[in-house]
């Protein structure tokens, strides 16, 4: 496999894993969950270093995953009290965890280089160089990991499809048929936390935050079917990966930055040009209605004039 293919494949699989979950976050109005997790993992890295005195990837990932789970479950619990709105719950939990991490670094790790970029956040450009030996076969680490995570997420949303649909759309009704919205929300958020942390390690933070939400938000504007929304989000993720990589090579720029920006451009196009919900379609409809109203009014006036 060429380096280009490995990078695009890594990004595409990461995008798939994220875009399978993103639509549900958008629909449940907790779209900033990815940003929250990206900051909340810091104390996990400090804790892992304190306990094991190492910055080895596996230990760091486990520490980060632990705090990612604490973050998403704490946000959900805070939402569940009914005292704090979704956006405020997110805004309350992750700064507290991030602050805890900053404090921990200052207190226990002032002498060593311990931060998010040097520990948990990977760089997609290095994906081809990080390989694993799997029974004599050399496989690219990020492709293997993100492939497994994407497959697990696909299995999860396939199994929980109707549960996710009913608890997202009508939680009161879901409760009445014994489909607990709390249980479903927790399963979804655990998947988000695990996916985000493994993806941070493979492709870096900005790409994860972008690919979790931007394709889902664009897909939301393009369809009225949930299954189509998820499929379109995955497709946008792949287009962003391919086009973003080509663009980055063309102008010799950051790969993750180019992919994230491509996703944003696709969202912009959807916002303008989506057939039903786009701004252009809306303006055309409004103009058409206005013309029809004017015509009807003119006819009415004409009829009155003739009658008088």
């Amino acid at each position, binding site marked *: 496999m060429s380096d280009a293919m490995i990078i695009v494949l890594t990004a595409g699989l990461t995008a798939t894993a994220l875009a399978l979950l993103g639509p549900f976050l958008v*629909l449940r109005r907790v779209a900033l969950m990815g940003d929250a997790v990206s900051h909340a993992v810091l104390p996990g890295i400090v804790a892992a270093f304190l306990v094991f005195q190492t910055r080895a990837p596996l230990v760091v990932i486990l520490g980060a995953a632990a705090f990612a789970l604490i973050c998403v479950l704490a946000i959900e619990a805070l939402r569940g009290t009914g005292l704090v709105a979704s956006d405020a719950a997110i805004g309350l939990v992750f700064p507290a965890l991030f602050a805890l991490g900053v404090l921990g670094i200052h207190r226990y790790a002032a002498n060593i280089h311990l931060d998010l970029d040097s520990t948990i956040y990977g760089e997609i450009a290095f994906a081809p160089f990080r390989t694993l030996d799997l029974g004599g076969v050399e496989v690219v680490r990020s492709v293997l990991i993100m492939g497994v995570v994407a497959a697990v997420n696909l299995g999860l949303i396939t199994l929980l499809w*109707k549960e996710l*649909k*009913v608890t997202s759309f009508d939680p*009161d009704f879901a409760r*009445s*048929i*014994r489909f607990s919205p709390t249980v479903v929300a927790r399963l979804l958020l655990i998947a988000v936390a695990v996916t985000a942390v493994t993806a941070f390690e493979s492709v870096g933070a900005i790409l994860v935050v972008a690919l979790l939400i931007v394709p889902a938000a664009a897909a939301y504007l393009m369809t*009225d*079917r949930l299954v189509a929304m998820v499929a379109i989000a995955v497709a946008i993720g792949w287009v962003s990966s391919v086009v973003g990589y080509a663009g980055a090579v063309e102008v010799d720029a950051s790969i993750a930055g180019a992919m994230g920006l491509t996703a944003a451009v696709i969202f912009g196009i959807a916002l303008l040009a989506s057939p039903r919900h786009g701004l252009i379609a809306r303006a055309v409809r409004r103009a058409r209605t206005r013309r029809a109203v004017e015509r009807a009014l003119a006819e009415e006036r004409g009829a009155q004039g003739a009658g008088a």
Partner: protein
Amino acid sequence: MAPALDIPALEVAHLTVSYGSTPALWDVDATFPSGAMSAIVGPNGSGKSTLIAAALGLVPSDSGRSTIFGRPAKEAMRRVAYVPQRESVDWDFPITVREVVEMGRYAEAGWLRRISRSDRAIVDGAIERVGMAPYSRRQIGQLSGGQRQRVFIARALAQEADLLVFDEPFAGVDARTEAALLSLLAQLRDREGRSVVMVHHDLQTVRSMVDWVLLLNVRAIACGPVASTMTPDNLRRVYGAADIGAPAAEGAAWVP
């Protein structure tokens, strides 16, 4: 029709629910007979929605108990179709009419399993029955208020429940649609012996269409057959004298 009183469809005893320190319901006793259409009536903030949710075990109660067809509510939820207030629904959600009605079969299918072919036939029948078949592929937000409510009634029908519980089913629905939906509910009662309990605000409809009524204002003021329960005296106790006197008040229309 004469409602059978032997085994009530829904019965609550000494039900007390509070939000914070304010009681939403205080020591409420009420019985809703099976095979009848019943209404819960009272001013805003009188605890009507809370009563339904607590009776079905969906919000915790501080005291009291609730039975459905003689069994503890938690064990009998399979026999209940609940239609929550529509304010909480996201109308922009990417979901079609048919998909909403399919949710009525989810409990039968159970966790993780897909709904079966016979479930699909039941869904088709329910959509047909409320006259929404031409719209079954529409996104839910593209419908009018009355059509939306018909979809949620179809979902309740698809549940094939013996007790249908509606929270403000006719909010935002025009009078003609309301009459059509009410006669559909009356049909379910008369032909299939199903029980209906609904929160309702229009005393006029309650008097003409409903068999049984609970007058509620945090406490249960009166509960019984419409004719003997909706007396001017009882209504004054529920709504307070000021409301009864005002022309726009809910109680004004019928007071002699």
